[in-house]
């Protein structure tokens, strides 16, 4: 079981309010991702749940029991840190065994569980090495191993992939998703990378300055962003925003259109512009087009033959337009 519920949780450092009172429900078995720009309070929120920071006010319930005042170890949660935070003076075996040793588990059972974790994570050949002798990906797996042996009610991940190179990051992303499917344990995952959030989450919590901007499934956030911030944060490349007369035509202060919902033509269309940069990725082409409405990004097929300096016409798909009012909120 791993249902976590935050009720009016608030965190202040002195006079600075990092997290204004916030409510959040994490259901048992869910993969929840906290995403937001750096400094938005997502790591602080995770640390509050972990118990590494004290709440200023509000309550945290884990499996229905009030855990607000419990020590980190008593909350039944396991955490994986961005820096891995392995014990450098212990072997991989001892690292993974450490939480069990602290819990006073008998030696035979420790060995059994460590071997199991090592098998699951492909670490069996490295058990007698020290963290310093492992690659980044292996270290991350040791950190995950140390978390799974305890059979926690929920896993907390604090930007676990940020220190890995791009290729490894994609692999580990898959491994963590698979792990979640096998263990079916609640996972809370913090990242600033919206791609990680979109690919891994059952539910995404978008945070800005400690405030929850929107909670929803990845596709909900993509299709129906609640405000301009979420619209701009979710999706890559970023959504194009247009203000002024063009927006007023749609009865909105601002309209937004995703790069993939704009069609490009050399002959005719709604908005005329000049290509400034074209990025050919093979499968896709990202075109940056200077128009009278401002710089727009367009995502188009890999075989599109448009280059720097070409004049093009852009047409948004009418049913994919997002409209926002003067407060930046979505107009239904």
């Amino acid at each position, binding site marked *: 079981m791993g249902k976590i519920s935050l009720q009016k949780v608030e965190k202040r450092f002195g006079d600075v309010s990092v997290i204004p009172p916030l409510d959040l429900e994490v259901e048992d078995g869910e993969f929840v991702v906290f995403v937001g720009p750096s400094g938005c309070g997502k790591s602080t929120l995770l640390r509050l749940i972990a118990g*590494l920071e004290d709440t200023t006010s509000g309550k945290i319930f884990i499996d229905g029991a009030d855990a607000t005042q419990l020590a980190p*170890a008593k909350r039944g*949660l*396991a955490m994986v*840190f961005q820096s891995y935070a*392995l014990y450098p003076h212990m072997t991989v075996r001892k690292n993974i065994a*450490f939480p069990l040793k*602290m819990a006073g588990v008998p030696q035979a059972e420790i060995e059994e569980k460590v071997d199991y974790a090592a098998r699951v994570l492909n670490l069996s050949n490295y058990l007698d090495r020290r963290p310093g002798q492992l690659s980044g990906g292996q270290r991350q797996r040791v950190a995950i191993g140390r978390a799974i042996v305890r059979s926690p009610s929920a896993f907390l991940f604090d930007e676990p992939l940020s220190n890995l190179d791009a290729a490894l990051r994609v692999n580990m992303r898959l491994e963590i998703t698979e792990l979640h499917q096998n263990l079916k344990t609640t996972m809370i995952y913090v990242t600033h990378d919206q791609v990680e959030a979109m690919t891994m989450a059952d539910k995404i919590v978008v945070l800005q300055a400690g405030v929850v901007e929107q909670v929803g499934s990845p596709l909900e956030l993509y299709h129906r962003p609640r405000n301009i911030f979420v619209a701009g944060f979710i999706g890559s490349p970023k959504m194009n925003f247009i203000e002024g007369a063009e927006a007023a035509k749609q009865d909105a202060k601002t309209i937004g259109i995703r790069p993939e919902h704009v069609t490009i033509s050399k002959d005719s269309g709604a908005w005329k512009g000049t290509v400034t940069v074209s990025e050919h990725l093979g499968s896709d082409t990202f075109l940056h087009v200077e128009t009278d409405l401002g710089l727009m990004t367009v995502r188009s097929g890999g075989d599109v033959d448009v280059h720097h300096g070409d004049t093009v016409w852009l047409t948004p798909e009418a049913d994919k337009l997002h409209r926002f009012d003067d407060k930046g909120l979505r107009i239904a």
Partner: protein
Amino acid sequence: MARAVTPARKTVNTAAAWIVALIIFFPILWTILTSFKPEPVAVASPPVFLNFDWSFDNYRTVIQQRGYGQFFWNSVVIAFGSTILGMIIAIPAAWAMAFVHGPRTKDLLMWMLSTKMMPAAGVLVPIYLIAVYFKMLDTQILLTVVLMLMNLPIIIWMLYTYFREIPVDILEAARMDGATLFNEIVYVLTPMAVPGIASTLLLNVILAWNESFWTLNLTAFNAAPLTKFIAGFSSPQGLFYAKLSAASVMAFLPILILGWFSQKQLVRGLTFGAVK
């Protein structure tokens, strides 16, 4: 760009380094030479350098007549005792200052260091009177405690610096893994800080071993360490330079050997944190 080192320049530099080293080392070398001389040669003018009857007589006399063994043992107990006692207090203190620092931690550290700026003689009378009151003059316990107090600021400062190098993530991981504060310090912090702890230990053993103000003032015979042993040779009957030298050599030799073997550790510890 690396500077060009010509062979001539290298020779000059090497020679200069040796000369400086010899000048610094000369008093110690002279003490060692003197310790092998008969008393009249030791005070001869002009001084005799190597051409004399070498003998261990001074050592024999010093060991047999003055009870070197007991002084040596007192030195060991006081130096190691005060250091270990200091460590037991300083490790948790440095942990608190390094990992749960408050707005006044820096001030507290500076205040502790400031106590080292006061001349020891300033607190001699009160400490002496306290010792008299508790009937602890000339005891190993008194010396151990006093020297521990004298060196505690340095121990805490050194450990604090080393602990600051340890990523707090690792301690938090231990906390998540169910380690109590005690386990966190014993299983995680201390093993990671071993180089720092070792050099702190060594430096403080050396400081305590060579400490002479308190040892001379608070001991008579029972708890007297080697510093008192040496001082005993500047007696009212006159100075016995050769025997004094032999006693000095026997006082610094143990710590010199200890220092020699742990040189690597000591240098690493003292420069730890200077370069990241």
